[in-house]
């Protein structure tokens, strides 16, 4: 489905090669990352699963120590049955909670409606005491048949978030998407993204003066500007994917190892500051706020070096990219107290 047919512009020595997307063998890079199956499960399915667990073959075996006697086996069955009863009650509780949260989210979506108007967003933001300089959003690539799914859905979501960030006055935005669909096929999808983004920004800000932006794909060393010739933009967008996380640190280690073998780098010179400097150049700056648009918190292999002090926000049982979640994340950030070590 997706083939990498571009030539990487390796300007930096430590740039990882483009084919290292399949570092973890169990997840093929082409298959979209599916959220764990429990996310949107109906109570009927849960009951069925629980019933199956009770009668099924694949329940955990009783401890088979030499002194296994009938009493301990019976005790195990009794205890396991109690556990499944607890799970059953939990599933009812979770369903009610899910319903409650969905209603609450619906209410919030109505209460915070941006109406494609930057003034409304700026008014909401101006009630806060502080805003982050760098926001990072974790997006999920949904199945093409789903609402807001596939590449079109993803591009739509990126354009919306970019418009909100601009309206809120946040100058840097990074988008993390596990598979890196846009990043891998930037020749085909980057023009689509810029077209959609410019159209959406025109919707928000009017056609007379569309805000300028730049899109950077650090892994491919690509940067495009909305207005050619100007490098000073209103919003810097960075597109990240799994390869910008641990694989980039591995590549950095390789480069450092090569340098050390050629005696160009002493081992004692490898400090946190040096690594930080390199990784900021290779991936981007540390985000102040990470917003996860998923029903539960899963960092999905997000670059580990960069989430050191980031506030993390997600809305339980929310699957959509909506403004209510975005503004609530900013609210959380405004209330948090930052004190390193103290």
């Amino acid at each position: 489905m997706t083939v990498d047919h571009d030539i990487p512009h390796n300007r930096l020595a430590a740039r990882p090669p483009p084919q290292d997307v399949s570092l973890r063998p169990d997840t093929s890079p082409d298959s979209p990352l599916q959220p764990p199956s429990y996310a949107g499960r109906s109570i009927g399915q849960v009951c069925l699963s629980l019933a199956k667990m009770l009668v099924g073959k694949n329940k955990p075996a009783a401890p088979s120590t030499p002194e296994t006697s009938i009493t301990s086996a019976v005790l195990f069955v009794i205890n396991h049955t109690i556990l499944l009863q607890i799970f059953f009650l939990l599933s009812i509780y979770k369903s009610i909670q899910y319903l409650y949260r969905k209603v609450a989210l619906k209410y919030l979506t109505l209460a915070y409606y941006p109406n494609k108007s930057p003034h409304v967003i700026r008014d909401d933001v101006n009630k806060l005491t502080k805003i982050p300089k760098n926001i990072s959003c974790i997006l999920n690539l949904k199945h093409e048949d789903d609402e807001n799914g596939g590449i079109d859905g993803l591009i739509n979501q990126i354009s919306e978030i970019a418009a909100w960030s601009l309206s809120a006055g946040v100058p840097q935005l990074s988008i993390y998407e596990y598979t890196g669909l846009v990043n891998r096929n930037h020749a085909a999808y980057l023009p689509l993204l810029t077209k959609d983004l410019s159209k959406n920004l025109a919707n928000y800000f009017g056609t007379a003066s569309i805000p300028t932006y730049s899109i950077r794909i650090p892994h491919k060393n690509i940067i495009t500007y909305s207005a050619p010739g100007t490098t000073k933009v209103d919003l810097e967008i960075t597109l990240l994917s799994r390869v910008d996380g641990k694989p980039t640190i591995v590549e950095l280690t390789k480069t450092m190892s090569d340098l050390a073998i050629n005696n160009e780098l002493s081992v004692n010179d490898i400090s946190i500051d040096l690594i930080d400097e390199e990784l900021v150049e290779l991936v981007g700056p540390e985000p102040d706020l990470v917003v996860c648009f998923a029903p539960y918190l899963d960092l999905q292999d997000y670059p580990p070096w960069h989430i050191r002090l980031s506030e993390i926000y997600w809305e339980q049982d929310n699957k959509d990219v909506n403004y209510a979640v975005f503004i609530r994340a900013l609210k959380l950030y405004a209330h948090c107290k930052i004190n390193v070590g103290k």
Partner: protein
Amino acid sequence: MSLFYLSWPLKQLWKAALSVKIFHYLVSLFKDGMIAVMRTGPVPKHIALIMDGNRRYAKTKQLPLEEGHSAGAESLVDVLNVCYKVGIEQVTVYAFSIENFNRPKQEVDTLFGLLRDKLRFLSQNEESFASQNKIIIRILGNRSMIPADILHDLEFVEAKTKDFDTKKVFNVCFPYTSRDEIAAAIRSVVEARKSEEITIDSLNASMYFGPNSPPLDILIRTSGHQRLSDFMLWQCNYNCTIEFVQTLWPDFGFYSITKILLKWSYYKALQLEEESFTGMKKNPTKHVSDILKLLPPPPPFASVNQR
């Protein structure tokens, strides 16, 4: 904080009730029962704790700082007890961050002393917690930053417990930050100068936790902050449940940890069931490519123009 004041008389009442012997017995019977029940389901292998909120606890109760920290240590013993009984192999705690050296010297000294005393208390003699439950205590972190006298004592504690024939490990991160850990791992990989290819596994193996540590399943942070504060960044960013709890650490006890473990166990059980279900479906599709060769041979060709 209003909630705290509301719960205060309730807590007193609970304590008074516990002093009645029969009630105390019933409660501990219930706890043991719960643990036995949880053992029969899926159990995480590795959990990590950020024990935040000791100072706020002391402040709201108007106690000296030291009391807050020792109340935290008490609740740690409670939580450890539950974890190892349920069958968790490794528990990791964030005892002291490298950034904590920014705190006033007096508090740093108190914390060091407290940690040493508590670890000694855990492992000192035959009846103490670590010896009785056969738990290996490991000190993970940048050792060059620990004052010599305290390091000596900590190494003694480590040496005392390291020969236990058990899978139960208690990791104390002291003084630790994840960035320091990653930097140290990179340094050790570079220093090895091996000709073989450097992979993600060689970095994994060079972390303070070592190659044999099971992957992290749950990371718990108490007292409501929704950030990781430089703790186990490398380990927690894939396939790990991160729980941010509002309770202050000294109030985090049996019920809080049970709630989290049950929730994890519930989702894991459903996931396993689903996997076994879809796994059965997936297996036959593996041989799809061989279908053409597996077909029986067709009848002979009969063509007009090719003889």
